[in-house]
């Protein structure tokens, strides 16, 4: 399972990278979104997969699966959500003011 998820993570990272390398703002932002999916899975895998029960004491006697990565991912999810929200709005404002969503075109636009 771990190897499978690692490969999945790799593929997600590749796709994310490919999207980030494109010129369109939308694709780039989607790339970052895929990145966050990939890394969340990655962190989760680092604690070992399916090695124990749901980490809630009332539900089982143990052994429990590693709870720490889960806590980390929760924090990471929130942060990536916050960042994405800001990024989206920034992209939207950039498009509104500059009138283009192509990074190469954006570069060539005259200032102000």
């Amino acid at each position, binding site marked *: 399972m771990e190897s499978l998820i690692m490969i999945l993570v790799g593929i997600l990272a590749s796709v994310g990278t490919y999207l980030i390398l494109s010129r369109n703002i939308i694709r780039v932002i989607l790339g970052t979104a895929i990145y966050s999916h990939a890394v969340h899975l990655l962190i989760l895998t680092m604690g070992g997969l399916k090695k124990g*029960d*749901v980490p*809630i004491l009332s*539900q*089982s006697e143990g052994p429990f699966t590693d709870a720490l990565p889960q806590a980390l991912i929760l924090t990471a999810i929130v942060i990536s959500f916050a960042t994405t929200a800001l990024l989206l709005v920034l992209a939207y404002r950039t498009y509104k003011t500059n009138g283009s969503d192509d990074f190469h075109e954006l570069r060539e636009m005259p200032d102000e």
Partner: protein
Amino acid sequence: MKETILLLALTFFMIAIGLLLYRSIVGPTMPDRAIALDTIGVNIISAIAIVSIILSTTAFLEAILILGILAFIGTIAFSKYIERGVIVERKGDS
């Protein structure tokens, strides 16, 4: 045996999700996608229920409810978007 059946059911759900995914990618219209996604959501609810049975834990039952809520809100938002082009209206007495 029960476990095997449950896994089989889970696999069926996965296949269903895969098919719906095809529909949501291909479209061809926005409502198609909305419906497909709504259905995907519903299927995931079922899948989560099955996983809960397999893992014999009740920890995921909240997820079922939440997914239901989200699928609902999502579909409403989507249809509103299709219908009116905006999701949150500034003003209106419609």
